[in-house]
């Protein structure tokens, strides 16, 4: 049956029906509906199942605070779980399914847990951890994992796109109710740049529904005028469908804009699905309104029990009646608005139960005037029905619920008072204070979240500030807007005064002073308290809080975590205050003494897509490429990431395996000649009168004595004495050095140099420039390298003219070059540095020059194998941030004579000189064909106290060497160099142990460098 009223519904367009699917059932709503209003219009109150007990649950709110009606939207790749039906705008063809049930919403096996509720009481999870130990792993965890969980994440990549948008404003106004709009106008009048963000599609907040008039106009008319006026101004931007989610340090705010789309299952290529706003605001006006609280009574979670304000929203905004015999239960005046609104819409009111003994005021008078049955001092004792409301038992609100009277009804609306939405105040450190008169937590004006200047950066206004009566709002909001502008540096009154946004007065239809009762009836028996829900989504009942208190979890933070109160996806928007009320009552304390937990962002859940924005796929992290990258790609490059770069791991020929390609490249380089793109090497120019002194501090070796035209291998350590980088340093001039760094180290080492120059030795005259990308570097390596060099130009590359570790400037292939005779493979090797723009041309000329000599490019893996064959270390392989030069047998590169260098003091610490440190050795497997896994640990057969095997070393590099036709490995082994010839075991997978002999790390040609 339809619950759509024959009239009313200010937000819907009855001319535009929209078809949608609910659990594969075809239903119809109107344009302007939310999914929730359309479901209610189709008499679909049952909307989901609760998390723990799988109890049937209905729509209880009309906003983002909805705990129950969580739905899965769409299907396939675009599917989105856990959306609140109350905030989903209805669209043609929308598909929504309910969650957390099996096999169906109407019949859910999991609901059996409801009968076991006593077993699943507060702290259930924690208790399962405790005892018996095996039960957690084999019984509880599988059970909980199967039954828990809400929606289902899509398994395919998201076809939609998302974007980030940056905004800088003087004043951010959150919320477009009367308070927000007036404050925005006042701030703009003072000359501030203002951004107004509204979470809903429509502006105005609750005012249009609650019968408020502004300057004699109905609220909705005044709001339309005011928004139009604000939108017209240069200084103001107004956006709807944009929820402010978090307030952070120094006015950083983020908000998510949802963009509706005509068809839920189609991605929109032309526009992002969601837009994450990243806002810097000097001041934030928090005009976020208030959220109505439920009342705790037995059966308050039966579908058909709803917040009074929500029932009013559905009637006024969407023309939907939630029932035809409605019981109203309240502790304040605002629910009377609902009673009269529903009555005016022709809905039968079965009675108003007001827990107050003698309430009075205009709202009551109006209700009585239209003939409604107001019964004071009464409350609901219990709700009949399981999947829908069948009626209630009414009882004296101060009693124990024993004497009752049955009222037949099919809906219950409740109001437990209002909780100001103070979340944004709390996100960045603002404190709250309990206001006993108004019955709510309010921003404590003396303890605001502060900005960089130490002044409060959030100004609460309107209902969010506890101003529940609209008549007080215009003046307060003007003050707030002006104050925000003033704090943002705008004292002027530029621009015109707008009458539209400066109303003289507003009139409210109801005042709202609640009489607090955290459980009704107040003396309720346990049988009632154990069915009175506080947190609907996490199934926390009044008795759960009481149990937590009995078991000692009395701090509000402990009680929250023990019971999971407020920890569901709605973050306790409805439940927190009621839960704290019960907690205080159970301990016989005042709420002010109990305090509240801290609200944390985000205000409502947001998608990972919105967080990622455009930063995914190739845009996630830009790849650095050398000028020869395209050539590599065209010639079979098998890529590997090296720091920010991509480098060819090897070059694959047709039909070749990676392994075969590596072996071919190694043998070709060792027997003929190879070509290496070494452009990724860091190249940092260090210049100035103090450059030698500076490099003596940075490197463990002495660099100031290096002669011009010569190169020296250098090691860099941090102040802990551990290796951080290595490379070849060339002295280019009296005051100028070129420092090579590892490929991954260029930016880091340049920053390291700058840090010491700027923060420690700032009087030293040294200038550093990172030239890494300005120059390419090409290695020509192998027995035929000299012939290739001679063909490329007229530089004398004879042993006499260019010795090992010499460098010279000259011209090759028509380009100015700097030529280094250095080697990382033990072969005769030249490295040519030249301007990046000439890199590709030089590369191809070198290939041509060596074509008849068998020249081939080789990749990083061949490079690695060849250096390991010679026992050369690699930063990041042999080092891991805990390895010293001495550990690697590199004492020869550490100066003992220098009075100081970075790491020297640390290397004198006792534990870095301990005899049992793990030190570098070669590892020759007994089976020459067995290649040790990288990172494998050696054990000595003994056990540690905790039962783990004692590890005595590990493999740091391991390869197949085609040159010597066996496996080779480097490793760090306890007292390694003292144990030459000893065989140690490396346990690997499936119980196997690979045995290897400790040998010298130099596998190839003990006369290292002789042929270089």
């Amino acid at each position, binding site marked *: 049956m339809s619950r759509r009223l024959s009239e009313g519904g200010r937000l819907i367009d009855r001319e535009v029906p929209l078809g949608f699917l609910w659990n594969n059932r075809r239903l119809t709503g109107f344009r302007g509906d939310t999914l929730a209003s359309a479901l209610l219009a189709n008499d679909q109150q049952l909307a989901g199942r609760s998390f723990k007990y799988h109890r049937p649950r209905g729509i209880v709110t009309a906003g983002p605070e909805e705990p129950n009606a969580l739905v899965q939207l769409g299907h396939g790749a675009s599917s989105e779980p856990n959306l609140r039906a109350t905030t989903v705008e209805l669209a043609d063809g929308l598909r929504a399914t309910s969650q957390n049930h099996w096999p169906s919403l109407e019949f859910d096996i999991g609901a059996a847990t409801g009968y076991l509720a006593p077993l699943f009481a507060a702290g259930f999870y924690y208790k399962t951890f405790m005892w018996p130990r095996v039960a957690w792993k084999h019984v509880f965890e599988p059970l909980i994992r199967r039954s828990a969980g809400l929606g289902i994440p899509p398994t395919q990549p998201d076809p939609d796109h998302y974007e980030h948008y940056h905004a800088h404003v003087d004043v951010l106004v959150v919320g477009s109710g009367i308070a927000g709009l007036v404050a925005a106008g006042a701030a703009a009048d003072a000359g501030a740049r203002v951004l107004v963000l509204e979470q809903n599609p429509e502006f105005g907040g609750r005012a249009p529904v609650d019968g408020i008039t502004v300057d004699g106009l109905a609220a909705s008319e005044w709001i339309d005028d005011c928004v139009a006026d604000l939108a017209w101004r240069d200084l103001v931007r107004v956006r709807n469908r944009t929820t402010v989610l978090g307030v952070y340090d120094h006015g950083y705010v983020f908000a998510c804009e949802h963009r509706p789309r005509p068809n839920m299952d189609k991605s929109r290529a032309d526009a992002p699905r969601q837009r994450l706003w990243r806002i*810097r605001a000097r001041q934030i006006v928090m005009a976020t309104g208030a959220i109505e609280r439920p009342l705790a009574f037995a059966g308050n979670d039966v579908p058909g029990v709803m917040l009074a304000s929500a029932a009013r929203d559905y009637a006024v905004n969407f023309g939907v009646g939630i029932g035809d015999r409605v019981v109203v239960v309240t502790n304040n005046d605002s629910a009377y608005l609902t009673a009269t609104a529903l009555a005016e819409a022709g809905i039968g009111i079965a009675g108003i139960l007001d827990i107050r003994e003698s309430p009075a005021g205009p709202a009551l008078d109006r209700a009585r005037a239209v003939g409604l049955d107001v019964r004071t001092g009464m409350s609901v004792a219990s709700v009949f029905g399981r999947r829908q409301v069948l009626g209630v038992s009414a009882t004296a609100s101060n009693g124990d619920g024993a004497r009752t009277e049955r009222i037949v009804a099919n809906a219950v609306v409740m109001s437990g008072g209002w909780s100001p939405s103070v979340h944004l105040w709390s996100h960045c*450190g603002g404190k709250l204070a309990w206001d006993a008169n108004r019955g709510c937590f309010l921003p404590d004006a003396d303890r605001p979240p502060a900005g*960089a200047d*130490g002044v409060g950066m959030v100004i609460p206004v309107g209902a969010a500030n506890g101003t529940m009566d609209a008549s007080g709002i215009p003046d307060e909001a003007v003050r707030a807007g002006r104050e925000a502008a003033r704090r943002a540096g705008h004292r002027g009154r530029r621009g015109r005064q707008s009458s539209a946004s400066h109303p003289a007065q507003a009139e409210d239809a109801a005042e709202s002073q609640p009489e607090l009762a955290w459980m009704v009836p107040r003396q309720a028996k346990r049988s009632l308290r154990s069915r009175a829900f506080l947190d609907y989504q996490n199934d926390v009942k009044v008795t759960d809080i009481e149990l937590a208190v009995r078991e000692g979890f009395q701090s509000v933070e402990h009680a929250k975590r023990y019971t999971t109160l407020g920890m569901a996806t709605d973050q306790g928007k409805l439940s927190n205050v009621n839960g704290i009320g019960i907690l205080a009552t159970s301990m016989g304390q005042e709420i002010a003494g109990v305090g509240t937990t801290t609200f944390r962002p985000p205000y409502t859940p947001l998608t990972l897509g919105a967080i990622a924005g455009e930063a995914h796929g190739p845009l996630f992290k830009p790849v650095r490429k050398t000028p020869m990258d395209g050539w590599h790609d065209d010639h079979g490059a098998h890529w590997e990431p090296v720091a920010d770069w991509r480098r060819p791991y090897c070059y694959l020929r047709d039909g070749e395996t990676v392994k075969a390609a590596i072996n071919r490249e190694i043998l070709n380089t060792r027997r003929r000649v190879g070509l290496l793109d070494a452009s990724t090497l860091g190249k940092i120019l260090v210049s100035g009168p103090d450059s030698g002194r500076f490099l003596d501090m940075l490197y463990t070796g002495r660099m100031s004595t290096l002669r011009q035209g010569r190169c020296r291998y250098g090691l860099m350590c941090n102040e802990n004495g551990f290796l951080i980088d290595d490379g070849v340093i060339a002295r280019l001039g009296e005051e100028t050095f070129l420092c090579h760094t590892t490929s991954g180290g260029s930016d880091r080492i340049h920053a390291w140099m700058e840090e010491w120059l700027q923060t420690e030795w700032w009087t030293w005259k040294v200038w550093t420039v990172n030239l890494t990308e300005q120059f390419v570097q090409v290695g020509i390596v192998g027995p035929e390298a000299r012939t290739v060099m001679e063909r490329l130009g007229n530089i004398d590359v004879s042993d006499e003219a260019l010795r090992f570790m010499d460098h010279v400037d000259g011209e090759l292939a028509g380009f100015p070059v700097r030529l280094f005779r250095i080697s990382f493979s033990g072969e005769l090797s030249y490295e040519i540095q030249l301007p990046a723009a000439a890199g590709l041309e030089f590369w191809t000329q070198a290939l041509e020059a060596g074509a008849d000599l068998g020249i081939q490019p080789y990749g990083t893996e061949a490079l690695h194998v060849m250096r390991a064959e010679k026992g050369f270390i690699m930063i990041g392989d042999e080092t891991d941030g805990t390895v010293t030069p001495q550990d690697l047998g590199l004492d020869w590169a550490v100066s003992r004579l220098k009075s100081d260098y970075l790491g*020297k003091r640390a290397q004198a610490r006792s534990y870095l000189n301990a005899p049992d440190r793990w030190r570098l050795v070669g590892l020759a497997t007994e089976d020459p064909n067995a290649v040790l896994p990288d990172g494998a640990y050696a054990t000595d057969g003994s056990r540690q106290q905790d039962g783990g095997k004692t590890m005595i070393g590990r493999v740091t590099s391991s390869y197949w060497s085609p040159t010597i036709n066996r496996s080779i490995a480097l490793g760090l082994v306890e007292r390694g160099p003292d144990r030459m010839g000893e065989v140690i075991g490396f346990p690997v997978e499936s119980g196997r142990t690979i045995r290897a002999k400790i040998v010298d790390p130099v596998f190839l040609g003990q006369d290292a460098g002789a042929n270089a």
Partner: protein
Amino acid sequence: MLILTCPCCGAEADETELASGGEAHIQRQGPESTDAAFEAYLFQRKNPSGVHFERWRHAFGCGKWFHAARCTRTLEVFGTYTAQSLKPPKWILDRIRKRRPDWAGPLP
């Protein structure tokens, strides 16, 4: 997401432009230092709830290091000043004392 004004280039820099460098005014200990002094230099850092002096680098801006004095509790920034200083300048200390009359924290 702090905003700190780089005293070198003057930019009001967002935290994403900055790299933090821990406590400021740590005196380097060289080869002659005692074990205790060297250990303190490497590992011992203040972690006050309140006034703190920090090193920051305008990493994605002018690249310069600078110092900031701020309150770790309220995030109030008392000022930023050049990294080429052994101690906080007087004007920074004056400003801190004005804003935090009770401040008795040890000077760096």
